[in-house]
């Protein structure tokens, strides 16, 4: 079953076409990797889907519901969670409090919200850091915090913007494992990622963008061999 259908989605900022006629769909329970060079329109696409930026034209359907142009809080309330490229933790609150704010969406009672938040914090392997303020956490831990906070709203679809961006090499495998573990819970994931090896490893499908346009969409193997993708993004070591 298709959880998300995007048709001809476009957005311009003045004369700049951030996204042009983007089309793709996502199967429930799968991972879609989004790749593209800087400025390709990947984060803008996330903003358009989650309502943080109003699209100019197109159609966005979450299951059968049209979510085109709806406000972000309403979209998240339908079950679309997200993380941000530039991390946005509630810095002066503890990790537990950060996740509880998300957990309150499903749990009205403070004790139950807290228990649910603790379970999710345990899931992301940060249980020992639960009383640390978000500002005291490392970048990798903050990435986990954002994932935990987004999971706390019990999303059906989770959009993750650069899970491994800005972290050191040793931290990356743990985050990748976490994404795989997340998939096993049944949540559908769309992830923006620069590391092509990670994308190939975790994705069921890949969407490649360049200059705001879709240049390829398909299984990782297809994308890896797609000439347009190679020219625009992957490049080749074989210059001759």
């Amino acid at each position: 079953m298709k959880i998300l259908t995007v048709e001809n989605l476009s957005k311009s900022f003045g004369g700049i076409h951030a996204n042009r006629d983007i089309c793709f769909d996502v199967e429930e329970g799968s991972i879609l990797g989004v790749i593209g060079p800087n400025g390709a329109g990947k984060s803008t696409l996330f903003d358009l889907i989650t309502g943080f930026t109003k699209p100019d034209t197109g159609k966005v359907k979450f299951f059968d519901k049209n979510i085109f142009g709806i406000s972000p809080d309403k979209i998240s309330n339908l079950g679309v969670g997200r993380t941000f490229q530039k991390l946005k933790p509630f810095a002066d609150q503890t990790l537990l409090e950060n996740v509880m704010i998300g957990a309150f969406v499903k749990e009205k009672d403070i004790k139950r919200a807290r228990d649910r938040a603790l379970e999710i914090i345990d899931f992301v392997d940060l249980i020992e850091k639960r009383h640390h303020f978000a500002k005291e956490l490392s970048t990798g831990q903050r990435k986990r915090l954002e994932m935990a906070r987004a999971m706390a709203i019990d999303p059906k679809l989770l959009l993750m913007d650069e899970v491994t961006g800005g972290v050191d090499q040793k931290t990356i495998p743990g985050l990748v494992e976490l994404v795989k573990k997340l998939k096993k819970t049944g949540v559908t994931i769309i992830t923006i990622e620069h590391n092509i090896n990670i994308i190939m490893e975790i994705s069921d499908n890949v969407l490649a963008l360049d200059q705001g346009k879709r240049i390829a969409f398909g299984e990782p193997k297809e994308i890896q061999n797609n000439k347009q993708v190679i020219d625009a993004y992957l490049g080749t070591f074989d210059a001759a």
Partner: protein
Amino acid sequence: MDNKLEIAKSEPIWNTNNRVISIIAGLVILLFALPLFGMNSFYLHLFIMIFMHAVMAQSWNVIAGFSGQISLGHGAFFGIGAYATSFFYMEYGITPWISIFFGMFVSGIFAVLIGIPMLRLSGHYFAIATLLIGISFQVVFQRWDLVGAASGLWVTMTPEDSWSALQFHSSKAPYYYVFLIFFLITFFLVWLLSRSKLGYRLRAVRDDPQAALSLCINVSNYKIIAYVISAMIMAPMGSLFAQYILIIDPDRVFNIEISIIVLLITVLGGIGNVWGPIIGAAILVPISEYSRIYLGGTGGAVDLIFYGLILMIICIFRPNGLISFIPKDILERKKQR
């Protein structure tokens, strides 16, 4: 069974510090007992002003400290509360105990009406807009004949002390207890608010509105809710102040200085912290009152110079306010580590 998770779940929700609770309970008992030791009129007045300013600052703390919106026109709600009580008592003989709630209601309505357009603004723009709203209330009341225009309202005095009219001429002690009870109730309610789902969500709006939106929080609505709560806390202080001095006019109850002082008190004590306004009021109000006594009139503005100096020092060395001097190991969240 995950042991660490079970340990975490078994922790109390609020790790209350018994030593702190004992100190607070002792202070509350002491505050109730103080007038019994024959406090003179000045000290009663001093404590009344501390209680009043602490509640006013707490009101500002809800909108600025909890939800992150800097309002510079909060004096308007103080004035509305003052006029509501005095006007309905003088015109219709309605006891202030009822019209206090009417003042709260009207303030809440105005907060919604002002908040819907204003809270679309943020940061400095919101602050400037509220400043102008505060001033415009003063101007309107200066020209509104029904409420005495610039002369204001002289509350009809009862011949004797009267609880129903909330007027006490023989001693300030009853006022002391009325203000004290409002002070304690307000702080308890705001303390509860800070620990409620609403409190969590307001802090999310304050810390990062975009992240809050991604967690199903309608940021605009929550800002308005905070503004309304804040206004409804401020209004009763206007009502009680009107009953305390029995004469109100626009320059006194809509003065921009009210909005600035509640800001200073909160920032000094610690913005976003329930205890901040108490600490701020306990320090700034005596400075103001003593400078008024020793320097006459409005204190020759020396109190304002003091305020400015203290604020500069705080902003440079203790941006989280004086509350940050309290050792971290007795703060609840840290203690759990």
